[in-house]
């Protein structure tokens, strides 16, 4: 290994031309990467991290333009390379792995051909040799039955398998630099853990340098040696994983970490502290620190007049920070806000009681297939939600958590079993058949900020319409009602005139919450309300939900795949797997041994920020079973790391009742499990 870095980005400036004029996205970025090293690049959406990746690949589209700076790779400046030279580098010396693997693979070409193409184009090997290489690579990314996979089309593979193919395609030419842009975003947490594990492993074997881009600080901690934090097109802090996560210096990095519901935090003990304000658009850049307008330590003048360069922190080699006040800020002045501790343990009467709930769909396997599958979305679901408390339903995609929400809200009806809402049976009651009082009792907050509000209607109309329908408000009273609701969700009254496209994601989600509150509901069902938001915005919305609950006594049914958020926010938790409830109970009991083996796997898969997090992790290598592969016995049997034998496949596991209403469905006795499991 030579001293010269493999990749050296110097003063990179990139701008996009938009209708509003030229918008600078990167404003003088410096970073370097040595051979074999893994650098994580983190930041919230819009910070320019993906642009870094695309600039290195020289793939900015027609709107993007590198306006200044150099990108030295193996001593050559990529900025000035011509198409031919770029082609020779792309895919061979620098390869890329993308966020959405399904979209990144050609749908009408077998994955085998897509893999073989790389050595055939770059090394001019024949088809047989390319096939051998592809097969070897598929084995390396731990895909079962590589021969069969070669002939599959992308749609025939699961998301995890697709991402393994993309990784194989990137590594097949043994590149010196691998750029991964959000490679696990959108994958289920257990799949993500397996993919990250694979990346860590392959890195050691192939000695490729990795530029790992992610919004998720935990995933970066798992794969990388060093971390760079980006804000508004600049690197604001850079250092080893340990330096950044245990001793952050830049106020933005600190703010970011304070927003994370990391393990050990919950709403009672260490509330999240959102960063004030919101990211200002790149076109509104002022000289000086980009973070100045939101920084709690800002000092007008010093911070706001001229550009601030990265400088090495004293006595901390390799740790660079772009903050003029870095030495003045106390080393670990991490803020700790305290909210009034609320007694969460006092039991209250249940508002929602779900018993033996079943839901199945008929689905045709493909457009032309004759056979229909019966998909069992919910099987024997049983749980209760206590008044004024938060019940979290957690699980991976396909576990039935959203179906449960749809039945509660009446958008779909159950095929069997019972759901009571304040004693009223609603399982078979579609929303049209519910009367106004019942509709008012339960409202919903949805997942996708871009689809939750009608783009054709103003905010005021959306909230006002809900007021009129659910509260029978006279039209004259509506504006004041809208303003009051906007105030509850901490938005100004001027928002009423805006349309959704003029709002940020966090604002849209607040408006959606205001709309749900219009009927003054007893229960709010929130289906992944924060999963599409950036962490700092996420923290603010979570806090808002919490406050609303405290003030209005609303029961919250919080549906999420994110265990960190659930652990932070919930009072009770139901862990779901393939339509069944694997475990149910108070949050502190569910997230402590004895666990259901699935809960254990989920918890162990959550990426943690601790660079010392040990390896005692459980990785589920087997993919989620498809409809007809689900065993008759325990649905988790095909992937369970603690399988005891054929009893798991054949006999549905008994539900074991533990202390405090904690229930687990599995074959292994609780005591035995507790003895084998460690707290995660």
């Amino acid at each position, binding site marked *: 290994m030579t001293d010269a870095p493999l990749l050296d980005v110097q003063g990179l400036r990139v701008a996009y031309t938009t209708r509003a004029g030229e918008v600078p996205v990167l404003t003088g970025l410096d970073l370097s990467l040595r051979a074999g090293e893994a650098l994580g690049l983190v930041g919230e959406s819009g910070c320019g991290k993906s642009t870094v990746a695309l600039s290195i*690949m020289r*793939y900015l589209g*027609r709107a993007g333009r590198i306006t200044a700076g150099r990108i030295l790779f193996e001593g050559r400046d990529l900025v000035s390379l011509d*198409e031919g030279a*770029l*082609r*020779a*580098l*792309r*895919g*061979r010396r620098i*390869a*890329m792995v*993308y966020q*959405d693997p399904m*979209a*990144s*693979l*050609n*749908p*009408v*070409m077998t994955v085998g051909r897509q893999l073989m*193409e*790389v050595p055939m*184009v*770059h090394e001019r090997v024949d088809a047989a040799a390319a096939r051998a290489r592809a097969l070897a690579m598929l084995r390396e990314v731990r895909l079962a039955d590589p021969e069969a996979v070669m002939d599959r*089309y992308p*749609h025939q593979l699961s998301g995890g398998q697709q991402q393994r193919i*993309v990784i194989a*395609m990137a590594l097949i030419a043994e590149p010196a630099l691998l750029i991964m842009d959000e490679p696990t975003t959108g994958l289920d947490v257990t799949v993500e853990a397996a993919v990250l594990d694979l990346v860590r492993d392959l890195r050691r074997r192939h000695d490729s340098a990795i530029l790992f881009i992610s919004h998720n600080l935990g995933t970066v901690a798992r794969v990388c040696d060093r971390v760079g934090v980006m804000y508004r097109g600049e690197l604001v802090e850079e250092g080893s994983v340990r330096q950044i996560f245990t001793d952050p210096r830049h106020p933005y990095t600190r703010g970011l970490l304070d927003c994370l519901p990391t393990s050990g935090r919950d709403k009672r003990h260490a509330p999240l502290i959102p960063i004030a304000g919101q990211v200002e658009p790149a076109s509104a850049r002022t000289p000086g620190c980009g973070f100045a307008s939101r920084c709690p330590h800002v000092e007008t003048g010093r911070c706001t007049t001229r550009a601030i360069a990265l400088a090495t922190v004293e006595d901390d080699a390799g740790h660079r920070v772009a903050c003029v006040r870095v030495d003045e800020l106390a080393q670990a002045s991490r803020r700790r806000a305290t909210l009034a501790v609320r007694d969460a343990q006092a039991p209250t009467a249940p508002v929602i009681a779900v018993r033996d709930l079943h839901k199945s769909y008929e689905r045709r*396997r*493909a*457009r*032309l*297939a*004759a056979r229909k599958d019966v998909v069992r979305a919910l099987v024997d679901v049983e749980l209760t939600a206590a008044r004024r408390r938060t019940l979290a339903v957690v699980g991976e995609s396909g576990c039935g958590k959203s179906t449960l929400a749809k039945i509660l809200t009446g958008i779909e009806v159950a095929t069997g079993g019972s759901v009571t809402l304040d004693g009223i049976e609603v399982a078979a009651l579609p929303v049209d058949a519910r009367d106004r009082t019942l509709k008012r009792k339960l409202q919903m907050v949805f997942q996708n900020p871009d689809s939750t509000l009608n783009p054709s209607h103003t905010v005021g109309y959306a909230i006002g319409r809900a007021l009129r329908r659910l509260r029978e408000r006279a039209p004259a009273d509506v504006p004041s009602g809208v303003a009051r609701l906007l105030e509850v969700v901490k938005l100004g009254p001027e928002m009423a005139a805006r349309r959704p496209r003029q709002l940020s994601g966090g604002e849209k989600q607040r408006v959606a919450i205001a709309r749900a509150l219009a009927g003054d509901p007893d229960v709010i069902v929130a289906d992944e309300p924060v999963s599409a938001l950036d962490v700092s915005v996420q923290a603010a919305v979570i806090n808002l939900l919490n406050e609303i609950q405290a003030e209005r006594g609303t029961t919250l049914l919080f549906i999420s795949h994110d265990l960190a958020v659930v652990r932070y926010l919930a009072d009770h938790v139901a862990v779901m797997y393939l339509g069944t409830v694997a475990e149910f109970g108070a949050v502190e009991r569910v997230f402590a041994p004895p666990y259901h083996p699935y809960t254990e796997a989920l918890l162990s898969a959550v990426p943690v920020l601790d660079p010392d997090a040990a390896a005692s992790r459980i990785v589920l290598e087997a993919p989620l079973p498809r409809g007809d592969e689900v065993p008759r016995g325990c649905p988790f049997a095909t992937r369970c790391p603690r399988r005891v034998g054929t009893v798991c496949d054949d006999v549905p596991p008994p539900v074991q009742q533990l202390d405090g209403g904690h229930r687990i469905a599995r074959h292994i006795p609780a005591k035995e499990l507790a003895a084998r499991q460690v707290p995660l």
Partner: protein
Amino acid sequence: MARFVAKHLLFLLLTLLVVSFLVFTLNEFSPGAVARKVLGAYATQEQVDLLTTQMGLDRPLLVRYVDYVRAVLSGDLGQSARFKAPVRDVIARHLANTAFLAAIAFACIVPLSMILGVMAGMREGSRLDRVILILSTVVASIPEFALGVFLASVFVVWLGWLPGTATLVAGGGWSVAAQLVLPVAVIVLFDAGYVVSMIRASMVEVMQRPYIRTAVLKGLSFRRVILKHALRNAMLTPITVIMLQINYLVAGVVVVETVFAYPGFGRMMLEATLFKDIALVEAGALVAVFLAVVTNILGDLAYVLLDPRIRA
């Protein structure tokens, strides 16, 4: 696959039944009308009544429709009043002429629009794209008769290179091949303009897909990216439309056939309609719909063959 074919055949049958019934009803709106149309305006009412009874036209509509379907199924399409010949022969002759014209036009349209559409769509916003987009839009906007007039005024009136009619009878010093040039040119220009913009739009969309980025960043040449990765995906949406052009080419070229006095199916239908040759109109409509539905099925089939996601 069997299910696919069965479903489509069922739809074909259903469509033919509905259309034949509608046309039948329309043509025989009032019992006396048919005989009146056959005999013309100068026949006496007695003659009309007599013929009505002779033809069995005083029976209920549904009964006559069933009889009609039975006759059609046994291959008897009736007699054409306009051409004084069995309807079957009249249709066969004109359809063959049109098929000939359509085949030549189709053989030009498909490659031409694929090349132009792909070239335009592969670099959206490039000069080439703008030129192709605007040209194809303009050409597709000119009605066929106007295109015919424009081309004829240049090549027939002004330059005198080509004949102004295509009667398929060699004469006046013009070969049949020379006669075909203008009709084919009009059809190709008008229709390709539309198909080009379809393919271009699809290509533009495909070029923005992440898998094209994957292909480029694998280090493939632009040519390889287009031919191996973009082309097949870009043809998925337009393939159905392309197959539907067969339908237009056979049944929709009335205007071109009229402009150039080409003895084809469309002009036959026009004459039959204007002459109130009911047997011919009914049979012709059935043939046209049959063709339309079959091309629809062909389009769906082609789509299935191109897209592995549907074969599953």
